[in-house]
């Protein structure tokens, strides 16, 4: 059996890559993609624990499905917002979209 650590490391790597993308990227589409990666890293964690610690119940798996559904919806919404931003300002750079400040 594959040790549980391998899956957890995979989840952590995915989460970290996603976080790097969110923090470092300036393009809104890439930031959104980073968020997706973070979500999937978390999903892997859920499924891993579900499979190893509590195989009879499917709680963790159902959570993962929920995460996927929410991620899909969020991607659709996020992309729509980015589209409006680009239409209005001819840019998808998040640094330039800073009207909501003090």
């Amino acid at each position: 059996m594959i040790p549980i650590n391998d899956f957890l490391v995979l989840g952590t790597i995915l989460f970290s890559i996603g976080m790097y993308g969110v923090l470092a990227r300036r393009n809104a589409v890439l930031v959104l993609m980073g968020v997706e990666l973070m979500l999937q890293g978390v999903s892997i964690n859920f499924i891993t624990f579900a499979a190893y610690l509590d195989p009879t119940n499917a709680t963790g798996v159902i959570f993962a499905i929920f995460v996927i559904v929410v991620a899909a919806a969020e991607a659709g919404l996020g992309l729509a917002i980015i589209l409006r931003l680009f239409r209005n300002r001819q840019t998808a750079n998040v640094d330039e979209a800073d009207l909501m400040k003090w």
Partner: protein
Amino acid sequence: MGMEQAWLLPAIPLAAFVFLLIAGPWLPRRGDWVAIAAIGASFILFFPILLDLQDAVKHTEGFVGGGKSWDWISYEGFNIKLGFFVDQITIVMLIVVSSVALLVQIYSVAYMRGDARYGWYFTVMCLFVASMLTLVLADNLLLMYAAWEGVGFCSFLLIGFWWERRSAAEAAKKAFITTRIGDVGFLIGIILLYREAGTFNIQEIIHFAQAGGYSSTYLAIAVLFLFMGAVGKSGQFPLHVWLPDAMEGPTPVSALIHAATMVVAGVYMVARMLPLFEEAPAVVLDIVTILGLITVWLSATMGLAATDIKRVIAYSTLNSLGLMFVALGSHSVTAAMLYLFVHGFFKAMLFLGSGAVIHATEKQDVSELGSLRDKMPITSLTFALGAGAMIGIIPLSGFWAKDEVLVSTHHAQNIFCYIALLASLAVTGVYMTRLYVLTFLSTPKDHHVYDHAHEAEPLMSVPLIILAIPTLIGGLFVFHFFGKALGFPGGFTEFVYSVEPEKFKFHVDVAVLSTALAGGGLILAYYLWEVRPALVDRIRTTFKPIAILLERRYFIDDFYQFIINRVILGLSAVIAWFDRTVVNDTGVDGTAGLGWFAGRELRLTETGKLPNYALAIAGGVVVIAILFLVLEV
């Protein structure tokens, strides 16, 4: 209709007050007839109650009064009842209040004619009469206190009736605040009595005390607080300063409120609670006597120097109130109530007489009046009767009452007290005669005033004549045959008493002494001011410091003003500073400033840049994770 329906007496003027308050301005004659009709109804309804009481006294052994009470608050064993109570003391007060109020109202129609607030005057008078009758009829201290404050409030409104005049506004304020000092004591006394007895009902409290429910020190403190209320309301030393200033109000107000009714409320209250005072250590009644005696002497001597006609009568009122308290201090409800009864009529008559003078001459300083006897014969005659009663000339009503006070003092007090009281009669004789001589005899000092003076119109002179009747024949009430003929068990002393009825006895020694002193004062004053006026000025120059002391009212008012200016305003300034800098600037503004400052600084973190927010979230998570690791929660 009987004692159980006694609540109607205050209810009718109260209804008239509410009606006048709403509809007054649209009524013909501004509704003065409503007020007079309401008070007249109360006066008429007094008689069925009197008959019922006479009947009850006749047929009940050991009658202690009747009435009716209702539940006010009733909640799981906590029960407060309010009600009305009629006994012999109440009846004496009721007849004084209702009859003098009616006469004063009729007089006021003429006196107040043409005043800008004519309707308002009658409206407030209705409220006053309602409050006063409630005070008299209340069977418990709570209702009595409410009415007590009610009459004080009406007194404030009526003293300051002409509030455009600064002195009137100030006098109203002074009266209100001074009596309020006493009222606070009264309230504390009521609370102290209630705390142990668990009831506000006066009769129950008295029974509780007589059963030994209070410890003697506790009772002494409680009744002294009660007495404080009486001191304020009845103008006893050291709270007497408001009454002379209260003369700023219209003269009928002075006659009703500051002579016949409200100021004797303190006497009435002490008379009603006298069993409590007697249960307490003897020192309590000694304090009552001493304050009464001080008031008698202070007011009588200040009356010698006052030149305002109404002020002199105000001092004579203080003098009379002091006498009543000396009587109460001598355990004699009978003497105090007899004096209260006759005083109500002759003092109201004196005030109404001075009102007639003021109305006719528009002057109230005796240095501008004089020789008015020829111009105002009726006023002059009734005024002479009132002054005579005040001095205690036989056979006027004041003589009998004052002698009763003297006899009770002679029985209950030491010889010094008795002599002091006797000696004050001479001073009373001097200043009342001086007032009469300077106003109605001697020579006219201001010829313009003299030429324009005229007799009062019938609406004013008829009440004067009616008031002269009880002044003339009031003394008859002490005799057995007269009381019997009117349906009472006997004379006044057999009807109103605290322990047991006593047949009236004429004490020749007291009568001779008092008549000699009062008559001596009268003759001396007549000689000084009528025959040898020049001598007065010489006496004044010789004893200048004393004259100044009297004219400045023993500097008591100045002393109080000094205390107010230095101590009270000084303390207030400190408190104001504390309030402004500590409470307001630091406490209130500081808290607001902190929020404002924090908001101003923290808003800079809102950069609007997405990566900053993302970093804050990620960093926050890391920090929380580290914290959890370190703290090992």
